[in-house]
């Protein structure tokens, strides 16, 4: 009881936990652009090498997933694993939109190595989510 009271007192007195981060144009644009085009959130903030490496890593991983005949998840309210797969795929941003628009990828896994492709697609999207969060942290000055 005493510990929880002390924790609350510390949380209130600590300025780092109570300070609101000012919303700037860059803190909105960089993550949004970074989601749409992997690495672009870093590129527009002049982190060129980081942006190029992120663009290359996420894009090549996503395209390899497609080339391995990986399954592309569509929005649905059915199986929880399908929903999670869809969330992962959506992280690919522009690549996912292009994939759906061009009807690339497989609806179902047709052979053993296609399962690797499915995982590549999901993880590429999840890695892009991490890159988006990093672009946001750079935009608000939390990271150099």
């Amino acid at each position, binding site marked *: 009881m005493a510990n929880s009271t002390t924790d609350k007192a510390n949380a209130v007195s600590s300025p780092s936990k109570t300070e609101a981060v000012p919303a700037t144009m860059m803190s909105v644009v960089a993550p949004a652009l970074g989601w749409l085009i992997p690495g672009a959130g870093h590129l527009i903030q002049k982190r060129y090498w980081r942006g190029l*490496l*992120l663009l*290359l890593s996420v894009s090549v*991983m996503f395209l*390899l997933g497609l080339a391995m005949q990986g399954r592309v998840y569509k929005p649905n309210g059915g199986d929880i694993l399908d929903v999670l797969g869809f969330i992962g795929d959506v992280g690919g941003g522009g690549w996912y939109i292009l994939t759906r628009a061009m009807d690339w990828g497989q609806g179902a896994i047709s052979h053993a190595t296609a399962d690797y492709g499915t995982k590549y697609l999901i993880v590429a999207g999840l890695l892009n989510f991490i890159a988006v969060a990093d672009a946001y942290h750079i935009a608000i000055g939390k*990271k150099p």
Partner: protein
Amino acid sequence: MTIQLTHFSAAVLFAVFASVVFGITQRNTAREMLRYGLYCFAMFVGGVIVAGWAMWLVRR
């Protein structure tokens, strides 16, 4: 275009891409990024090799 990778080559490529992103996003300086990226890569590939030997032992 269709690509069929072996399990090991798929795991190594996975490790390369994930390590690059982890290194860039989880550290602040270029030197730290490189070191952490290499550490992640070693852990990924090392984990694959250890898991492979563990499965070989289980199978025997």
